[in-house]
């Protein structure tokens, strides 16, 4: 039986344009942003919509990313649906305010066109910027292509604004590879998006006057958000945020499934996307666009009779440890790919979390880490084939000699 989905239109969009278009359809009240490569197109395109009168959004041009995030927090605290975008040094400049946003429980959505950090200066793509913000209390979802970028931005507003979540969301798209590559993107109608995203929901909170009012800054129902919490309360507020992250694991899946029913497009179970992993003996784990290349390589290897598989980690925060464990525990050898480096760490950020998730598994695969693609270093099918052939040897020898390895680096 053929399923019937809502009517969609095919557009030619790059990842950044897909973000801008999704934000336009999501009926966002405020956008406060500062342009930075490779996120620039998002801000450019959105300011065009504003100039043309296509949206009613209040567009705030700030003098820095720190100010952009400050404006977003203030706007979101009044109950306004708020969006921003950044990358690299811009995201790093926001660092302080990212914690204020999550601590204030402001459901801001931010697109991060992942780019390397200085020094030396590099404008190309890697995931050092948002990986460095993994403990800032933001949900982090990484996408593979422009289509998923569009779909995920729409889902992000719903996820962020759910009362049991109420956390800001970063949608990470690989700089240039996704942000600047023109693709066919199926888009929903404005009405379909409006129905799906809906109005922002505000939970009731108890104010200092003992009144139950919607959680927003409102002169008629005054409340003070986060001026100070001393040692007797700060810890409790942080524990609340951790609970919200746990709730997000369920909400991300619910929103994703609802969207999949509407559009016909889904990405694994929203947290992880396994690819030919059921009977896999060797597998690669990666985050972001590299999975596109990896899928091609898995197909080629499968055709040669190699039991290769792939696990794409779509949601990195909250980390879906149980799902990762279940997906990988029967694989013989696993390579985890990191597009960022944790200097002095015993492997990259993704590797440490994935390996940790397997610690309590019934059977543990042999696991190695590969750092790849730093500063935009291209990682192609050949590189993935090399990783899989290494895994074949590791699985055969039942032993991994080197824990941390580098893809495409001149030794």
């Amino acid at each position, binding site marked *: 039986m053929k399923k019937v989905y809502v009517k969609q239109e095919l557009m030619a969009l790059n990842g950044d344009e897909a973000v801008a278009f999704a934000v336009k359809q999501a009926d966002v009240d405020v956008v406060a942003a500062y342009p930075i490569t490779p996120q620039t197109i998002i801000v450019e395109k959105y300011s065009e919509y504003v100039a043309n009168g296509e949206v009613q959004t209040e567009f705030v041009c700030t003098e820095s990313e720190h100010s952009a995030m400050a404006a977003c927090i203030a706007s979101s605290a009044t109950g306004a649906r708020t969006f921003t975008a950044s990358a690299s040094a811009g995201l790093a400049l926001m660092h302080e305010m990212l914690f204020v946003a999550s601590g204030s429980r402001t459901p801001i959505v931010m697109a991060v066109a992942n780019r390397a950090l200085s020094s030396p200066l590099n404008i190309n793509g890697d995931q050092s910027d948002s990986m460095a913000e993994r403990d800032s209390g933001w949900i982090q979802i990484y996408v593979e292509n422009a289509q998923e970028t569009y779909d995920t931005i729409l889902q992000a507003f719903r996820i962020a604004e759910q009362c049991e979540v109420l956390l800001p969301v970063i949608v990470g798209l690989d700089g240039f590879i996704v942000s600047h590559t023109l693709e066919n993107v199926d888009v929903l109608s404005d009405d379909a998006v409006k129905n799906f995203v809906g109005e922002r929901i505000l939970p009731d909170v108890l104010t200092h006057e003992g009144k139950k009012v919607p959680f927003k800054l409102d002169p008629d129902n005054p409340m003070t958000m986060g001026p100070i919490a001393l040692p007797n309360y700060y*810890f409790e507020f942080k524990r609340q945020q951790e609970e919200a992250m746990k709730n997000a694991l369920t909400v991300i899946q619910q929103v994703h499934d609802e969207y999949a029913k509407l559009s016909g497009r889904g990405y694994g179970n929203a947290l992880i996307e396994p690819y030919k992993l059921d009977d896999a003996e060797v597998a690669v784990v990666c985050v972001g666009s590299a999975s596109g290349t990896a899928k091609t390589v898995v197909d080629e290897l499968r055709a040669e009779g190699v039991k290769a598989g792939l696990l794409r980690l779509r949601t990195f925060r909250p980390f879906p440890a149980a799902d990762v464990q279940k997906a990988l525990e029967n694989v013989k050898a696993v390579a985890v790919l990191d597009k960022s480096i944790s200097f002095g760490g015993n492997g990259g950020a993704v590797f440490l979390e994935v390996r940790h998730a397997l610690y309590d598994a019934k059977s543990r695969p042999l696991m190695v880490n590969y750092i790849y693609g730093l500063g935009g270093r291209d990682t192609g099918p050949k590189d993935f084939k090399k990783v899989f052939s290494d895994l074949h040897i590791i699985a055969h020898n039942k032993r991994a000699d080197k824990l941390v390895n580098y893809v495409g680096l001149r030794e």
Partner: protein
Amino acid sequence: MSSKEKTWREIAPGGVCSKSSIGFLTGDWKTYMPVRDLEKCTKCLMCVLYCPDGAIRWRPELGKIEFDFNFCKGCGICAHECPTKAITMKLPETMEDE
């Protein structure tokens, strides 16, 4: 920390204040509390002069000093300066019988 403080499940999200600023007393910051020994007190009022928060008052109608615990931060300067050691600093949880 007293047991009347709320748990993380009970408080509002986002650090929303449960009281107005009038309800937040600097006296809540203290760990140690000053305890007076009226037999040792010579009413020299050095403690009144030294208290950085003006939280010790001479009450002529009662003929003794009195602490204002809404503002006393428990710094212990009064106990340190008292010439007759008539003030001692104690943890509230050890003061049940006093």
